Structure formats: C-alpha cells, structure tokens
C-alpha cells in the first residue's frame, strides 16, 4: 500500500504539518483572546522571543558554529544554517544597507503559512510574527540587539515574504557582581 513507502519523507512532512497546524491553532486562539490584530502581533512577538532565547542553545549545540565575525556572517548563518535546520528553507540575503547594518531575508515560501488564508477582517495581522520574536530573542542571547520586522508577506498579497533585520547595538555581557 502507498502508506508503506516514503516512510521518512512522510514523517518529516507530518512533523512539518504538526508544526504548521499547531501554529495555526495558536494564531486562531490569540485572535479569539485579543480584540485587535496589533495585540495579537505583540503576543506572537513575545512568545517568539521566549522561544528564541531557548532555541539558540539548541542551535549552537547542533550546528557547531563558532562566533560570527560580523553582521554579514550572522546573516549568512541565519539564512543558510538556522532556517535550513529548523524550517527546511534557505531564504536569500539581500538589500544590504550601505552601512552594512541592515539586510533583508527573502523567503520564497514560508512553511508557517501552508494551507493558510487571512480573512478580510484581519488585514493588519502579521501571521508569522513569531519568527521576528524568535530571531530577536536568539540574537539577544549572543549579545546582539536587533530589530526584526516583516516588510512583505505573501499572505497579504505580496509576491514574496521579506523580513528586514537591523543591527542596533552590541549588548555588553553583564557579569554577575563578584565578591570583590
């Protein structure tokens, strides 16, 4: 029977569907709990942040990547290693600002939005905003304060999904107060 074949690809796809469907259930629940899209966007960002600060450890443990030398290297690691590892896609890194402190991630397809359509009354909802929080939280744990936001979204009619990341500053390590 067709069920027997492609066991591994099917199970990977199923994991992806489990994640996508669960994310959809989350957004639906948040829309029910909060009156407006702005609030939902904020909650998604907050939850993403909480996930990001933990995910970074899993990432560093599994990827064996050393410290990045500069923001360009960070961008490459995010696009080619992190996104590939967790979402199975490799966004392209483009639109660097002249100062080299801002860039865009272009996602041809976004696994979070498989099977998703936004109803008309949620035009300001940033469905995948969890991703922004995850990136922000993860980078904060490696001493980088960044601003992350969606500038294009296929769910809202754009051709591609574009995430803009801006380096704000380096976070100084706060060593706990010593005895002396």
């Amino acid at each position, binding site marked *: 029977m067709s069920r027997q074949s492609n066991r591994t690809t099917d199970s990977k796809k*199923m994991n992806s569907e489990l994640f996508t469907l669960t994310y959809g259930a989350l957004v639906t*629940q948040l829309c029910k709990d909060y009156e407006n899209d702005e609030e939902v966007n904020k909650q998604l960002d907050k939850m993403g942040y909480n996930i990001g600060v933990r995910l970074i450890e899993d990432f560093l443990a599994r990827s064996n990547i050393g410290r990045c030398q500069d923001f360009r290297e960070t961008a490459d690691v995010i696009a080619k290693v992190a996104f590939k590892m967790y*979402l199975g896609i490799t966004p392209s890194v483009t639109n660097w600002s002249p100062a080299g402190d801002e860039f865009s991630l272009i996602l041809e397809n976004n696994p979070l939005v498989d099977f998703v359509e936004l109803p008309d009354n949620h035009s300001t909802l940033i469905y995948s905003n969890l991703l922004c929080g995850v990136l922000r939280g993860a980078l904060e744990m490696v001493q980088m304060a960044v601003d992350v936001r969606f500038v294009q979204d296929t769910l809202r009619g754009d051709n591609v999904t574009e995430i803009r990341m801006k380096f704000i500053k380096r976070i100084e390590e706060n060593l706990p107060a010593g005895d002396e």
Partner: protein
Amino acid sequence: MADETLFEFLHMEIVSHVYKEQQSGKEVMDNKDRAASVSVLEGMGFRVGQGLIERLTKDSPSFKDELDIMKFVCKDFWTKVFRRQVDNLRTNHQGTYVLQDNKFALLTQLSSGKQYLDQAPKYLAFSCGVVRGALSNLGLDSVVTAEVAVMPSCKFQVVIQKL
C-alpha cells in the same frame, strides 16, 4: 520541513502562555483556572488532530470497525505524529481503550522518573485533544484523558461515546 524541536519549543511556549493568561495577575492558580487552561489546550489540539488525520487518510480505504480505527491510531497515526508506535493497546471491547506509550515524545524532555509528575497534565492536554480530534474525523466521538505514573511513560484512556 519543520524540525521536530521547533514543535516542542512551540508547544512548551503555548502551554506557558495559556496558563499565564488564565491566571492573569492572580497570586495563585485555582482549580477553575487550571481546568480552563486544560480546556483551551485540548481544544487547540482537537483542531490540529482533525487536520492531521485528514491529511494522513485522504487516500486510504475506509476502516472495517472501531478496533481497526484504534489500531490505525496506535500505529500509523502515532508514528507520524509522535514518532513511534503505541507500546500497548488494551480494550474491554465495550468502547474503552487504553493506549500506553512508554516514551511519550512530549514528556521525554521533561523528566524521566517521578520528578515534576504534577506538571505532566499541562503538557498532555494538547495531545489528548489531538487524539480526540483525529478520532472525531474518523467518525468516533470520544473522551480522551491521560495519566502519568512515571515519566516519560504515559497512558491515554479513550472512551468512545455511543450515540
């Protein structure tokens, strides 16, 4: 394809968020809040279970009987969703089934043994909903509960509701 750790992190954050919301500023969580949280998580799982079983069975032939459905849930569905098969299925042949998973995927990262046993129900509500949702789309109305004696081993009790 989304990595399984992503789902685990997302699930933990969802549980944390739901419980925080229900408690909303109160000092201590009371039983009503706890029940409401479990209910919200179970409801989310229900919709997810429905979706998953639809995708999984869209090309399959229909099932012979109730036991056939339960065996499918224990083997194929459990493998696809929880990455292993149910270790033990018991039934009284009168609509009650107990599915035992000795290494339940959502509990393995929490603890092995008796520590945090009181926290386990929080992390099982969603999964109970997933099972109930899957059965619902296969034509079976049920009540699904879970109990844990020693982590990460878990028993799901399914009681099929007769109309």
